C-alpha cells in the first residue's frame, strides 16, 4: 500500500533515504527530495482540503508556489503554521501536517452544507451580510468564523529565531530556470557581484519537470554543471529555497530564505532569513504558470494542471493516476501526455481545438495516445471523493455551445492545460507596465519604471521555447553586467537543444456544458482558492461592478493567499467575455507584495521582546530600581512614575509624595529634559526668533522661560534657557519634544538663515539632573556645597556653577513646583553619586523622591502648563493666558504674524481655565467633555475638554484644567462635564491656579 503511486524509477528523489511523516494522523512515508504534495500523491492521497466558501472537496492542483488548494496546517503547538502550501513544504523526518478548513474532517465536512445552499452565498455575500442589521450579524458571525477562515494561528510564543540581512549586488537574477542560469553565468563571468535566487530547493525551473535534453545530456546534468560553475565563482551567491517576495523602488527587493525548516529539527540556525537587497540591475527570469481551463466542475480533487502531473512524474517519480484525461487548448499538454504515457498510464487528450496539427500531436498519436478533438468535458463524474470519469461533448464553431450526444470516458485524473501566464508579479510590483498580447493571449512586460533598472528573460515575457529562454537569459545577464559597470561582459555560449515547434492555441475562456452557466448544480470555477465562479462574475457585472478592481473585491477573485496566480487571467477574460469587451479594455488588477506569504517571524526578525524597542534609562536609573520605582514610558524613556512604599497603591504614593515635596524637600530625576547647547555670535538672534519673548537683555548666569511657536502661531514647546556666557546658551525642552526642537532649530538655521553663526548640539544625555524642591531644599544643598545660596547671592531664575558633593555641577534656581527649588546638573557619569549624596544628606529632612505623577500634580496646583497635554496644535500663548510672555516690542519672531489672523485673534477661542467640581472628592476624567447645558442624550453643545485633572492633597480637593470656548469670560460660571458612565458632574470655572499662598515664587 505504501507509496502505491511511486514509479519504480526516475525522479529527483533519494530512494535510499525514507522519510517518515504524519498527515491527518496517518503515518506515511516518502523520500528525501519529496514535497509534502508529492509524498501525499505517492501515497494515493488526492483529497487534501475543503474549499473556502462552499467546503467542496479539493485536491492538490499544482506542483509549485501557485497552489490554490493544498493549504495545510504544518506542525502543532508553538511551531504550528497555517496556510502552508503542500507543494512547497519539503518533507523531513517527523513532519506532521493536517488539512485545514475542514470540520470535523476532510472526508466528512459539515460545512459542505454551504455547497447545497450555495444560492445563499453569492458573490458579495460578505458585503451584503455586513449590511444586515447589526444584531443579526452577531448571530451569524460565530457560525461564519467557524465555517470559514484558513487554518489556525499559533497561540504560543514562536520558539524559532529569524534573521535579517542587508545585502548589495551588481546583478540580481530572480529565478534559476534556463534563462536565469544563463543570465547568472553571463554576469558572473564578467566579475560582477551576482545573486541568483530561486524559490525551489533545486535549480532548473521548468527543466525540473521536463525531459529536455541539453548538449546531448538530460537537462538536469547541464543545470548541475552551471550551478557548479556559479558556485565556484567567489563573486556569485546562489540562494535556493529563497523567494523574492517584493520588488520596490530603486531596485530594492525583499527575499525570504527558508534556512533550516527542511532539515527537520532546530539546529541553532535561524528558521528563516529575510534579505533586504539593493541591486544595481535586476534580471527577472521568473518563468510562467500554467492556466486552468474553466469547465463544469473543474475543481474536483483529481483535476490538476497538466504540467503539474508532468512534474510529479519527472521530478518526483510519482504517477498520480492510472487513467488520465488531459484537456487542452494548446500543444504543451502533449509534452505531458507523452511523459505520462511513458510512465505507464493510459492517456486520452481532449483537445478543444478543431484540428490540432503539429509535431507534438503527431508524436503523441504515434505513441498510442488517444486524441479527441473539438470536444470539451461537459460532466465530471465524481463520487466517494474520487473522480470516476468524464463525459465529453462536441463544441460549436464559436465554442460557446455544445452539441450532439455525450460520450463518456473512465478516468481517475484530469489534467488541464489552458496555456501559460508569464509570472509578472515582481515586474508589476516594481511599477513596470504590462501590455496584453492578442497573439500570445497573455500580459507581457512592456517597459520598466525608470528607477528599477534591469531586464526580463524567458517565459516571464512569453518566450515559450527553451532555446529562446537560454539565449534571452544569456543576453540579459551580459547586458545587466555591462549596465552595472562591467564593460567586458558577454553572453554565455548557447548549449544545443532540439525541441518541437508548437502550434496555435484556441482561446475559449468559458467552456460550455449541457446547462447554461450558473443554472443547475455544475459550477465553473475560475478561482479555486476563494471559491469564485463564472456565475459570480456574471452577477458582479449585472450588479454594476464593472471596474476590474471592484470585480476583484466583490467576488474576492485573486484575494486569497495565492494572489490568484492561476486564476487572474481567466477572471479578466471571463469578465471581458461577459461584458463583450477585450481583455485590455477590462484591464488588470495591481500586483502587490508579497509574491508568496511571508511569516511574521521573518518580518520581525530579531526585533522582538527586549530588542523590540530600545529603552532609554537615565543615569540614576539603578537608584530608582533599588527604591522600587514604578516606571512610566515617556517617549522611549523609562521615568519613575511613583515610588510606592510597602502596601501603598498609586494614589496613596502620589498623595504622600506631593505632601512631602511641599512640606520639606522632594527630589525628582529631571534628566530626561531635552538639553541643547547653543553657541555662536548669532545665538541671541536665534533665540529671539524662536521664542516669543525678548532675549537681548539676558545676562550671563540668568535664566528665562520661553514658549516656542510654529509659523501658525501655535505653541509647540516650552522650557527654560540660560545664558552661560556671552554667545553661549543652555536651552531646555520638554522631555518628549527634545528631538523635535533640535530638528526645528536646525531646519531654520540650515534652510532660512544659513549665514548665521550658531551651532546647536544636543546634550540631553550628557547631563544628569536632580531637582530638589521644597522649603528645606536650600538647607539640603548648602550641606553639600560651599557656594552662597541666599536670595541675594543666588536669586530665582539664575544659574551658578559650583561643586555639589564634590561633583562639578551647574545649579539652576528654577522651579516647576512653584516652591523654592534647585535643578542640579552634573556630568551623566556622576548621576548616581549625586543622587546618593542628596538622598543621604536629605535623610534628616525626610527627603522624598517623587515621580512624574506627583510632578504633574505639583505643577497643576500652581497652574503651570504641560505643552502637549494642556495645549495641542491649535493653542496660542494668549489662549493659555500667557500674553505676558509675548513680546510686543522686539519685532519679528516665528508665528507672530499669525496672531493677527482673523481666526487666531478671536477672543472667544478655547482658553485655559481651572475647573472645580461640585463634589471636592470627585476627580474628573482627563479628556472628558465640558458642556453648557446637559441634555438626555447627544448632541449637546460642547464647550471644550478637561486637559489635566488630579486629586491635590495640598489644595485639599480635586483640581482640573480645561480648554473651554470663551473660557476667560466664563470664570465663575457653572458648567457640566459629561462622564463616560452617562452621569455628569457640575463644575465651577476658575483661574487655573489652585495653590496661591505657598511660595512667593509662585507669582513670579
Amino acid at each position, binding site marked *: 500500500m505504501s507509496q502505491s503511486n511511486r514509479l519504480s524509477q526516475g525522479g529527483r528523489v533519494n530512494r535510499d533515504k525514507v522519510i517518515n511523516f504524519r498527515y491527518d494522523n496517518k503515518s506515511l512515508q516518502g523520500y528525501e527530495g519529496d514535497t509534502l504534495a508529492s509524498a501525499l500523491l505517492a501515497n494515493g492521497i488526492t483529497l487534501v482540503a475543503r474549499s473556502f466558501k462552499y467546503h467542496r472537496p479539493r485536491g492538490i492542483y499544482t506542483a509549485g508556489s501557485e497552489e490554490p488548494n493544498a493549504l495545510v496546517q504544518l506542525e502543532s503547538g508553538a511551531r504550528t503554521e497555517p496556510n502552508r502550501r503542500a507543494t512547497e513544504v519539503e518533507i523531513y523526518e517527523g513532519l506532521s501536517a493536517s488539512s485545514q478548513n475542514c470540520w470535523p474532517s476532510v472526508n466528512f465536512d459539515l460545512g459542505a452544507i454551504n455547497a447545497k445552499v450555495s444560492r445563499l452565498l453569492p458573490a458579495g455575500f460578505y458585503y451584503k451580510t455586513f449590511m444586515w442589521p447589526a444584531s443579526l450579524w452577531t448571530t451569524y458571525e460565530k457560525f461564519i468564523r467557524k465555517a470559514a477562515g484558513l487554518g489556525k494561528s499559533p497561540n504560543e510564543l514562536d520558539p524559532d529565531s529569524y534573521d535579517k540581512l542587508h545585502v548589495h549586488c551588481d546583478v540580481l537574477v530572480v529565478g534559476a530556470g534556463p534563462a536565469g542560469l544563463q543570465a547568472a553565468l553571463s554576469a558572473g563571468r564578467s566579475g560582477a557581484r551576482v545573486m541568483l535566487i530561486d524559490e525551489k530547493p533545486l535549480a532548473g525551473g521548468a527543466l525540473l519537470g521536463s525531459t529536455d535534453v541539453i548538449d546531448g545530456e538530460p537537462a538536469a546534468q547541464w543545470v548541475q554543471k552551471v550551478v557548479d560553475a556559479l558556485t565556484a565563482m567567489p563573486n556569485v551567491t546562489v540562494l535556493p529555497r529563497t523567494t523574492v517576495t517584493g520588488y520596490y523602488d530603486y531596485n530594492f527587493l525583499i527575499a525570504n530564505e527558508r534556512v533550516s525548516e527542511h532539515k527537520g529539527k532546530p539546529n541553532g540556525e535561524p528558521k528563516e532569513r529575510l534579505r533586504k537587497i539593493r541591486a544595481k540591475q535586476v534580471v527577472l527570469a521568473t518563468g510562467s504558470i500554467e492556466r486552468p481551463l474553466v469547465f463544469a466542475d473543474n475543481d474536483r480533487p483529481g483535476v490538476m494542471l497538466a504540467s503539474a502531473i508532468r512534474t510529479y512524474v519527472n521530478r518526483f517519480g510519482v504517477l498520480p493516476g492510472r487513467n488520465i484525461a488531459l484537456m487542452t487548448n494548446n500543444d504543451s499538454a502533449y509534452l505531458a501526455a507523452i511523459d505520462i504515457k511513458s510512465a505507464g498510464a493510459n492517456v486520452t487528450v481532449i483537445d478543444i481545438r478543431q484540428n490540432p496539427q503539429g509535431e507534438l500531436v503527431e508524436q503523441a498519436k504515434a505513441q498510442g495516445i488517444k486524441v479527441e478533438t473539438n470536444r470539451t468535458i461537459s460532466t465530471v463524474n465524481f463520487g466517494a471523493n474520487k473522480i470516476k470519469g468524464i463525459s465529453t461533448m462536441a463544441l460549436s464553431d464559436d465554442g460557446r455551445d455544445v452539441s450532439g450526444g455525450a460520450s463518456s470516458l473512465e478516468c481517475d485524473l484530469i489534467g488541464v492545460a489552458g496555456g501559460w501566464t508569464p509570472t509578472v508579479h515582481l515586474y508589476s510590483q516594481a511599477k513596470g507596465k504590462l501590455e496584453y498580447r492578442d497573439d500570445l493571449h497573455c500580459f507581457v512586460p512592456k517597459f520598466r519604471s525608470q528607477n528599477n533598472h534591469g531586464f526580463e528573460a524567458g517565459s516571464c515575457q512569453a518566450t515559450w521555447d527553451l532555446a529562446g529562454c537560454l539565449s534571452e537569459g544569456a543576453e540579459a545577464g551580459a547586458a545587466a553586467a555591462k549596465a552595472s559597470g562591467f564593460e567586458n561582459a558577454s553572453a554565455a555560449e548557447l548549449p544545443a537543444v532540439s525541441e518541437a515547434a508548437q502550434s496555435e492555441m484556441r482561446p475559449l475562456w468559458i467552456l460550455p456544458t449541457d446547462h447554461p452557466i450558473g443554472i443547475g448544480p455544475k459550477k465553473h470555477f475560475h478561482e479555486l482558492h476563494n471559491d469564485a465562479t463564472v456565475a459570480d462574475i456574471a452577477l458582479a457585472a449585472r450588479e454594476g461592478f464593472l471596474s476590474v478592481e471592484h470585480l476583484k473585491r466583490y467576488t474576492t477573485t485573486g484575494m486569497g493567499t495565492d494572489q490568484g496566480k492561476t486564476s487572474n487571467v481567466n477572471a479578466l477574460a471571463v469578465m471581458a467575455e461577459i461584458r463583450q469587451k477585450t481583455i485590455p479594455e477590462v484591464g488588470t488588477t495591481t500586483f502587490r507584495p508579497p509574491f508568496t506569504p511571508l511569516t511574521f517571524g521573518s518580518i520581525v526578525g530579531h526585533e522582538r521582546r527586549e530588542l523590540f524597542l530600545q529603552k532609554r534609562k537615565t543615569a540614576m536609573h539603578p537608584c530608582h530600581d533599588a527604591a522600587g520605582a514604578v516606571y512610566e514610558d515617556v517617549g522611549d524613556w523609562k521615568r519613575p512614575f511613583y515610588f510606592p512604599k510597602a502596601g501603598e497603591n498609586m494614589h496613596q504614593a502620589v498623595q504622600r509624595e506631593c505632601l512631602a515635596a511641599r512640606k520639606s524637600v522632594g527630589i525628582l530625576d529631571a534628566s530626561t529634559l531635552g538639553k541643547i547647547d547653543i553657541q555662536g555670535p548669532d545665538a541671541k538672534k536665534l533665540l529671539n526668533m524662536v521664542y516669543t519673548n525678548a532675549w537681548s537683555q539676558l545676562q550671563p548666569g540668568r535664566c528665562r522661560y520661553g514658549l516656542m511657536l510654529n509659523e501658525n502661531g501655535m505653541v509647540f514647546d516650552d522650557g527654560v534657557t540660560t545664558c552661560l556666557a556671552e554667545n553661549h546658551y543652555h536651552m531646555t525642552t520638554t522631555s518628549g519634544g527634545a528631538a523635535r526642537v533640535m*530638528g526645528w532649530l536646525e531646519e531654520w538655521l540650515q534652510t532660512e538663515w544659513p549665514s548665521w553663526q550658531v551651532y546647536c548640539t544636543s546634550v540631553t544625555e550628557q547631563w544628569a539632573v536632580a531637582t530638589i524642591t521644597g522649603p528645606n531644599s536650600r538647607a539640603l544643598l548648602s550641606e553639600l556645597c560651599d557656594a552662597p545660596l541666599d536670595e541675594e547671592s543666588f536669586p530665582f531664575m539664575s544659574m551658578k556653577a559650583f561643586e555639589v558633593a564634590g561633583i562639578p555641577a551647574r545649579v539652576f534656581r528654577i522651579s516647576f513646583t512653584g516652591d523654592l527649588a534647585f535643578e542640579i546638573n552634573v556630568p551623566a557619569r556622576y548621576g548616581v553619586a549625586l543622587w546618593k549624596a542628596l538622598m543621604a544628606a536629605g535623610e534628616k529632612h525626610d527627603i522624598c523622591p517623587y515621580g512624574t505623577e506627583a510632578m504633574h500634580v505639583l505643577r497643576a496646583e500652581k497652574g503651570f502648563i504641560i505643552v502637549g497635554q494642556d495645549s495641542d496644535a491649535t493653542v496660542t500663548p494668549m489662549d493659555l493666558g500667557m500674553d505676558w510672555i509675548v513680546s510686543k516690542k522686539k519685532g519679528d519672531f516665528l508665528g507672530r504674524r499669525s496672531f493677527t489672523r482673523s481666526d487666531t485673534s478671536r477672543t472667544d477661542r478655547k482658553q485655559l481655565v481651572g475647573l472645580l467640581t461640585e463634589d471636592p472628592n470627585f476627580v474628573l476624567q482627563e479628556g472628558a467633555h465640558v458642556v453648557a447645558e446637559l441634555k438626555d442624550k447627544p448632541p449637546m453643545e460642547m464647550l471644550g475638554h478637561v486637559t489635566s485633572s488630579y486629586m491635590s492633597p495640598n489644595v485639599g480637593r480635586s483640581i482640573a484644567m480645561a480648554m473651554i470656548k470663551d473660557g476667560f469670560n466664563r470664570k465663575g460660571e457653572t458648567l457640566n462635564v459629561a462622564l463616560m458612565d452617562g452621569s455628569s458632574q457640575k463644575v465651577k470655572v476658575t483661574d487655573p491656579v489652585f495653590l496661591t499662598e505657598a511660595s512667593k515664587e509662585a507669582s513670579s
Partner: protein
Amino acid sequence: MFLIKCPWCGERDQSEFHAHGEAHIVRPENPDQLSEEEWGDYVFFRKNPKGLHYERWVHSHGCRRWFNAARNTITDHIYATYKPGEPKPEIDVNDPIHGNPENQR
C-alpha cells in the same frame, strides 16, 4: 524604498531621510506688511503637482543636513538633489523616458 543621494553623504536608503514638502519657499522679510491671504499662502498653501516637484528633505538619520530634491511624483524618479541655497536645476520632464505618456499614469 528610494535610494536618495544626500549631497553630503552620497546614496543612502530612504529610511535615513524625512521629506518636508515643497522647497524654495522663502520666509517673508516683513510679515507685518503681508495681507491675510499672502501670509496664509506662506503658512498653509503648498503645491501638490503631478510630475516634477521641488521638495525639501533632511538626512535625519545621517548627517542631519537639509537639502532639496527634484522628484517626479508619478514615477518617484529623483532627477537631482542639491544643497539649500543652490538654484533649482532645470529639468526636462519631456525627455523620452519621463515624458512617456505611459509613465504618466
